[in-house]
């Protein structure tokens, strides 16, 4: 026991600087935020939470946030799942190019990407021009400042966070398992559903957790693609601090957002533990 501790000790020290930094730069401000939401001039009170949940507007913001996050997650999953397999099964140059295509956009900030989506989606943008040219529509459709536009833009920006975790799991699945399934009489679809799809689930859970938590907390993207009149929890937090100067409301919303994020992480780690122990 003592020998084991001695062996681990030096390694544990390696984590000290990062832990200290996170305690100072992350845990401390978060703690202050939490305190601010329950501590007013009158002392400790949950009044701000009661007020928040009593207001139908708050409920609309909450459901908007969850709905948008759900849709973004769904779109990235549908688009990203096949891409993860293409990445895992391709070889050589093709794989390098696909990986670059997936990772390079991460180096461009969300602001730039959201602005480009504005250009693409506006009344005289590429999408509307194309639809008019095909004759599907007679006059421009409004995409910008709609939920559709927001979901499309956010899904595009968060796609790599769905693809990469799934890819990292899928590439480790032994291709001989599919061959074994085939020799046992399983057609390609049956074999995929019973073997590969199930073994890919830990990656899917991780991808969903990533994209969902990014989606509920996105701020810049909705600001540019849907505007002020459609509030999400994150934009409401920013608005409370920056425009309404209501720090109690801002910190209350921020804490609610944090609780949702923690719940997502806990559920997903529970699920991936279950999936792992099921093996």
């Amino acid at each position, binding site marked *: 026991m003592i020998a084991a501790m001695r062996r681990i000790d030096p390694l544990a020290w390696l984590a000290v600087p990062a832990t200290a930094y996170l305690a100072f730069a992350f845990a401390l401000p978060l703690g202050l935020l939490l305190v601010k939401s329950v501590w007013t001039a009158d002392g400790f009170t949950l009044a701000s939470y009661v007020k928040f949940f009593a207001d139908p507007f708050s409920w609309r913001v909450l459901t908007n946030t969850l709905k948008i996050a759900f849709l973004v997650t769904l779109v990235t999953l549908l688009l990203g799942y096949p891409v993860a397999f293409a990445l895992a099964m391709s070889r050589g140059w093709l794989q390098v190019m696909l990986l670059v295509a997936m990772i390079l956009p991460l180096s461009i900030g969300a602001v730039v990407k959201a602005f480009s989506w504005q250009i693409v989606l506006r009344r005289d943008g590429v999408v509307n021009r194309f639809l008019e040219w095909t004759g599907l529509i007679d006059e421009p459709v409004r995409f910008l400042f709609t939920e559709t536009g927001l979901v499309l833009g956010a899904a595009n920006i968060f796609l790599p966070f769905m693809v990469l975790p799934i890819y990292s799991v899928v590439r480790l699945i032994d291709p*001989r398992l599919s061959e074994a399934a*085939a*020799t*046992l009489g399983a*057609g390609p679809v049956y074999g995929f559903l019973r073997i590969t799809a199930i073994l890919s689930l830990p990656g899917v859970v991780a991808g969903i957790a990533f994209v969902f938590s990014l989606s509920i907390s996105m701020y810049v993207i909705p600001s540019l693609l849907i505007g002020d009149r459609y509030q999400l929890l994150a934009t409401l937090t920013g608005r409370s601090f920056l425009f309404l100067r209501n720090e109690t409301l801002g910190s209350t919303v921020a804490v609610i957002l944090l609780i949702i994020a923690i719940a997502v992480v806990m559920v997903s780690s529970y699920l991936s533990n279950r999936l792992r122990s099921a093996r």
Partner: protein
Amino acid sequence: MTQAHLDIRGVSKAYGETTVLDRLDLAVGRGEFISLLGPSGCGKTTLLRLVAGLLNADSGTIAVDGKDLTALPAHKRNIGVVFQNYALFPHLTVAENVAFGLEAKGTPKGEVAEIVKRTLALVKLAEMAPRTIFALSGGQQQRVAVARALAIRPSLLLLDEPFSALDRKLRESMQIDLRRLLRELGITAVFVTHDQEEAMVMSDRIAVMNRGAIEQLAAPKTIYDKPATAFALEFLGGSTRLRATVASVDGDYVQLDTKLGQITGKGHFLRGVDVLAGVRPEKIAVNRPPSPDRNSVAARVVDRVFLGSKLMVIFDAGPGGQGVAELNAADMPELPADGVVEFSWQIADTLVFPAEAPA
């Protein structure tokens, strides 16, 4: 053999410029156990994958029971495969692994449970049914793989080095168990291995493969006693091999010049041709009085390996050759100071092959 159970005709497979199999023919009888034996890269695993339908042949046909399977995908062939790493499904229990093939075919539930139970009993794993495969030892995992392949009642069982991950002791007992089980079930099996002992233990016949072709297909004893090629001599069993040149021809016999002196062998070769002379180690004796029907050479002993009742004597057979004699431990005399001893063997036991081009 009236009609071959598995009939492979003229099968070729190439990857780009590299020819892996070259117009290969192989016929396996019903209930027969055949080993494909050869070094890595000889095409044995490729041949197995072609039969399973996991690869497509460039040309040729593969038929089972007279039915051409060449164009059928793997999942319609009903050929069982035991993979080298077993390829067990990690998220399923032992019973679920064995049930997989039956469920894929839509077998009724009650029947599936019955067959799974019976098949697991065959491989003596009945009590392991509800376990995950990670709770099993390597040997048990291999038996699950065998049970999973047998559960679908395959027309043919293919095994790709199924013992290579097991330690030696376990391997030997499992080889004998598996052979007995497959014989009892009357299953036709094709077995890929690079281990000659394994091939000899398991098989009715061995196909010695080299560079994409079968060099000899015969019972293990036949290959050992009468190897068809220098490669078969070298790959199956130990051998003394001497590089030689044909010095003179006398009817059915040839006089050969070797680094150790002149010897006689049987065969038809032209004068001046390079050949390889081979002898099985147990045919060689030491310090036997000379006799006209024996070849005799003096060679320097390099090493002696004691194997209980037997003694392996390694002697210098010149460049490109190898000298091994297997003696009864009591027959080895004291070595003289220079280490040179007289080795002799019957002319009838001298095997002569055309010299192979170096690989």
